[in-house]
């Protein structure tokens, strides 16, 4: 039963959806503060390469090394996001161009590739990886076993992250403040909220999440380093934030939905069904466009649309 195609696809949807989920949660935090960061792909790749480097070069017990690698990946992602934050928040640069510049700088033909080559990381498989755990010994449970209880720690951590981000935004004071900063920086500023600090913090935390998302590839899904390892997951993550109407819980659903599209062609191929993989691979993009069109009417925007100040710099003393 656990080999039925539905279960296999769902289990791998969770696997492939996890990096998307991390990256989308991060992007969601940045966008909720009003900063659009198109550099997700670059941040993921730098997180992936440096996380992998940590695993290869730190000598310690596996749990310690993996924890360290995740920390390194998060820091690397945050450092990349800092560049973007400095350019768009302090220097008021165009957020779109700056985000693309970040992807160019850090991405598959940039820093991540440079580091991967310069540190000669391409030769060997990972020395430590996140293995699937048998949570509560329930891995063999029908249906739910492989999907829910047979995943790696990164998957369970991502679920905790979704809950944490959702509660943070809806129930806590900083969460309320950051939503205000994204909706109306002028109102937030007038109420004594430091708009600049909130935007920096959330952009960087967003970068850290993207870094972890990237490390999910190099430490769990395909535990090795090749150039362009994430192969466009960062862009899907950006799409996912829109697809999820900027809500963390919907990000989870969307990530597994999109993850299933990534997994389906391989699963089908393994069972001798040949379908053009491009068909499934293009669905996340096409569906995002459809959702964007559906939410672009004015009324829909008011209820569930993007943070109103998304993409615009906030300058106090200008007239």
């Amino acid at each position, binding site marked *: 039963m656990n080999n039925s195609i539905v279960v296999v696809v769902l289990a791998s949807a969770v696997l492939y959806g996890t990096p998307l989920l991390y990256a989308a949660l991060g992007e969601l935090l940045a966008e909720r503060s009003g900063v659009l960061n198109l550099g997700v792909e670059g941040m993921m790749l730098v997180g992936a390469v440096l996380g992998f480097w940590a695993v290869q070069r730190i000598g310690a017990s596996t749990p310690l090394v993996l924890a360290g690698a995740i920390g390194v990946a998060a820091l690397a992602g945050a450092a990349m996001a800092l560049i973007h934050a400095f350019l768009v928040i302090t220097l008021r640069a165009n957020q779109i161009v700056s985000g693309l510049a970040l992807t160019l700088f850090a991405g598959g033909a940039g820093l991540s590739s440079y580091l991967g080559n310069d540190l000669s990381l391409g030769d060997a498989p990972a020395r430590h990886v996140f293995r699937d755990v048998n949570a509560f010994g329930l891995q063999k449970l029908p249906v739910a076993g492989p999907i829910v209880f047979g995943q790696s720690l990164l998957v369970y951590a991502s679920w905790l992250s979704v809950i944490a981000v959702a509660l943070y935004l809806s*129930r*806590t*004071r*900083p*969460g*309320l*403040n950051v*939503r*205000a900063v994204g*909706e*109306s920086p*002028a*109102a*937030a*500023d*007038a*109420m*004594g*909220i*430091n708009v600049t600090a909130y935007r920096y913090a959330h952009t960087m935390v967003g970068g850290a999440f993207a870094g972890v998302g990237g490390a999910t590839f190099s430490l769990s899904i395909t535990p090795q380093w090749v150039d362009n390892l994430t192969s466009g997951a960062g862009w899907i993550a950006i799409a996912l934030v829109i697809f999820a109407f900027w809500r963390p819980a919907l990000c989870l659903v969307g990530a597994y939905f999109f993850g299933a599209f990534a997994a389906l062609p391989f699963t089908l191929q393994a069972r001798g069904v040949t379908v053009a993989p491009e068909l499934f691979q293009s669905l996340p993009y096409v569906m995002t466009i459809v959702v964007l069109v559906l939410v672009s009417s004015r*009324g829909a925007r*008011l209820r569930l649309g993007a943070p*109103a100040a998304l993409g615009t710099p906030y300058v*106090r*003393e200008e*007239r």
Partner: protein
Amino acid sequence: MRGIVKRFPGVLANDGVDFEAAEGEIHALLGENGAGKSTLANILIGLYRPDEGEISLYGRPTHFHSPRDALEARISMVHQHFRLVTPFSVAENVILGDHRGEGRRFIVNPRAIERRVAGLGERYGIAVDPRARVWQLSVGEQQRVEILKALYRDARILILDEPTAVLTPQEAEALFHTLRTMAAEGRTIVFISHKLKEVKAVADRVTVLRGGRSIASLPSAEATQRSLANLMVGREVEMQGRRERKPPEARSERLEIDALWVPSDRGGPAVKGISLCAGAGEIVAVAGVAGNGQRELAEAIAGMRTPAAGAVHVGGKALRAGDPRDAIEAGIAYVPEDRLGTGLAPSLSVASNVVLKSYRSAAVSRGPLLRLGSIRARAAELIQRYHVSGAVPSTPARGLSGGNLQKVVLGRELSGQPRVLIAASPTRGLDVGAIETVHAYLREAAGSGAAILLISEDLDEILALADRVAVIYEGALVGEVDGATADVEEVGLLMAGGTR
């Protein structure tokens, strides 16, 4: 506040202002638009930093680096444009940024806050449903939320920037009542206004600003409206004579508006079945408090907004609904309230802006190509003829001051010999000299045969210019009076929604 100086690029907004307000006092800050009132207030709440001067609170020198410092010192401000997060609930807006009491907690407890907000609202007579989303509220209710924010923080000093501009007289009276209650508790209220009547009505003391300087500070009981006006303007105010009117003759209607319904941005109707005519050479005023459908009416006539029903005729011919180009070609000139952004493209040169509407004509373009030389010449001519100071044809529009911007817009709109001119608040924010110039141009345009629709909330302006006055209230015309015999009280009452 002593010797406050604040400069902006190209503008000296405050030039050594002194200001002092006592506890439990309603203190009016009176001045014309551009006198530096808002700048001074923004310095007091830490939004701007003064270039020179010092601020003392309760005898102690204070330096504010950000709005947060001012809030800590329990100073709050109700801005002219509300600082509300519209998708948030009232309660969420009220606790935003607060970090005392309920606000100190990391976890937000909506119920407790809603109870407190409801309690405050009842106590001060400004009840608003704490769970309502701000975008669902009327403008008056949104202002209440702003005041609730201040009360929630237990503000010692509350600054209100032109609070009555968006209110009906009844709402304004209710606001004054709330302010008096607050002052009676020992709070200081700083009331920014340029309306003499309400300053007299509500304030204990008045400080007058002019041209960025503080001119006088006196108890309002010792001042008369006329003496305040003189201080504000800096010279004896001539009550403008009414315009000489042609005797009514059999005239042909130039502009006819027929049972026009226009939707607002929010979806509901903003203009509810207005019918109105204006003849050649006639100035018809649409008087009303801002926000009663004037903007939507003007935009519908100019073709910028599609009416839900009804029609606009120029010289007997119906305009195509929602087509600005058709309106332009029918000879409708429009001076929009928003000069920079609608009337002019801010980053483009004066020359480009001068041909903003006429670039399609043969005089300006040859086939698809522009005649750049002739465009420059036109701009230079307009600059000279309308005395636009500090500009050459290549100056970007945003580099001009308000009065000069309006001269460029008016000059362009009048240069086409319009058959109809819609002027929406044409003198808002202008200084006295510029206002007189604008009025002169409007009279001149009427003299040369244009039908003019003057949309304004300034009764002095309306009575000085209009042949007929139609009063708009909540999207409908509630009365029409003859300009020559109109009575200020009567029009004012109609504007407030009263009945004769």
